[in-house]
């Protein structure tokens, strides 16, 4: 991923000390620590850019630091992983001494794309794919280490790569980072992952069913037909009740019947 992020800014990216970069990266793991319905991710962006802002003239006691930190801690919304792009780009813009109104406009413009791209790529793509692939391994008879290990390693390879790429890309491109969002992985990734996840769904569901139910096939055929009908029902009920709530109600009724009768 990093190979694609050639700097487009006419100025070469200044070097960011390794300790500062590491501090920013670690803080990015906690970017949603103070998430709230008013400033959303805003305080997290301030929290993550703060190690870089210390490099402003005058350090942490200087007026430039306070003005920049106040600006960066205001309302912001993005996908938490792709917010790394914003953290890198905003830190670079502040250290480059860009005019405050330009930074404000840039922050506003960045919210939408970083939210929608991240949601499609990660929440609706990579996460379900990794989840279904680990269920597939479970269905094939994998032990706890294989199933859980596969899920955590695979998912977090993508997760950490995206955060590292985001921080580097944001820092290297500064206010011109929008061009980097045309990266093929971000544009075509959700479609490709969607196809892989569709295959994984088909393989994982019958295998996982078979493993949980246990040996013997007498019930599997009936069960698969029931699952197909149940899935159609869930799709038809979309927008009226969520599947997990429906499951809660149906299971509660089933428990009552099983215990009382």
């Amino acid at each position, binding site marked *: 991923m990093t190979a694609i992020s050639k700097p487009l800014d006419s100025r070469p990216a200044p070097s960011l000390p390794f300790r500062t970069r590491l501090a920013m990266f670690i803080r990015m793991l*906690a970017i*949603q*620590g*103070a*998430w*709230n319905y*008013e*400033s*959303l991710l805003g*305080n997290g962006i*301030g929290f993550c850019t703060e190690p870089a802002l210390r490099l402003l003239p005058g350090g*942490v006691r200087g007026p430039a*630091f*306070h003005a*920049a*930190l106040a600006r960066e801690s205001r309302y912001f*919304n993005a996908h938490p992983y792709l917010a790394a792009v914003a953290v890198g780009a905003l830190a670079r813009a502040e250290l480059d001494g860009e005019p405050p109104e330009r930074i404000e406009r840039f922050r506003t413009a960045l919210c939408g794309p970083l939210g929608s791209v991240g949601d499609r790529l990660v*929440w609706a793509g990579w996460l*379900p794919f990794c*989840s*279904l692939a*680990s269920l597939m391994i479970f*269905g094939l008879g994998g032990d*706890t280490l294989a*199933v*859980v290990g596969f*899920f955590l390693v695979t998912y*977090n390879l993508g997760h950490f790569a995206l955060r590292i790429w985001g921080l580097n890309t944001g820092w290297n491109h500064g206010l011109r980072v929008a061009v980097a969002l045309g990266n093929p992985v971000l544009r075509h990734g959700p*479609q490709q992952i*969607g*196809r892989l996840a*569709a295959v*994984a*769904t*088909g*393989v994982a*569901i*019958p*295998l*996982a*069913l078979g*493993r*949980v*139910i246990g040996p013997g096939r007498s019930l599997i055929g009936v*069960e698969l037909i*029931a*699952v197909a009908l*149940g899935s159609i029902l*869930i*799709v038809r009920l979309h927008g009226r009740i969520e*599947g*997990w709530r*429906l*499951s809660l109600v*149906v299971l509660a009724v*089933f*428990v009552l019947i*099983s*215990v009382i*009768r």
Partner: protein
Amino acid sequence: MTLIELIPLAILGGVLGLDVVSFPQMMISRPIVAATAGGALTGHPMNGLLIGAALELIALETLPFGASRYPEWGSASVVGGAIFASHPSQPSGAMTLGVLSALATTWVGGWTMVKLRQLNAVWAGQRRDALEAGARGSVVSLQLMGMTADLLRGSLLTAIAFAALAPLANVSINSWTVDSRLSRCIVVGIAASVAGGAAWKLFHSTLGARWFFVGGLAIGLFVLFVK
């Protein structure tokens, strides 16, 4: 159940509840991981994995999109995993009650997350002037307070849910009348139906996805019946 037994579960539930949103979002809070960890803490990780797989199928539907309200699976899966794993012989109804306990906890957990977000907003409001002045201490403390509160939220939720639901599950298992295998079929059938519906919603707009799904299903059924 003693306090000594409850404390490790509460800590685990707190850490995994924290992962859902606040830190570090490595998805250790997903049911397939969290329920296995809950089961492992009770001495039976494989039981935890079994119920974790069923819960993971249901959790496929609920993805943490932005400001939407969604169930909190981290702490809830620890509760479900621990309840199921505390019955190592897997008696009739144990899985059903474990899944139901996790679903009930995840519902309450989603509500507690909304309350936490409102509390974060109150704390941010109290520091508005300091934040507008770019006070470093306020930015950092707000972040740390939010994460600490989230950790406590998850721990308390896990402890209360397990303490309340585990005895109820024990009583219900003793009175359970439906065949063990049929009970499992119903639970996992419901879970797989939710997963099927969720997968359709997620991928139906992807070009060619239905054919990829059919191909996958053919492979899955072939392996299932050949195994």
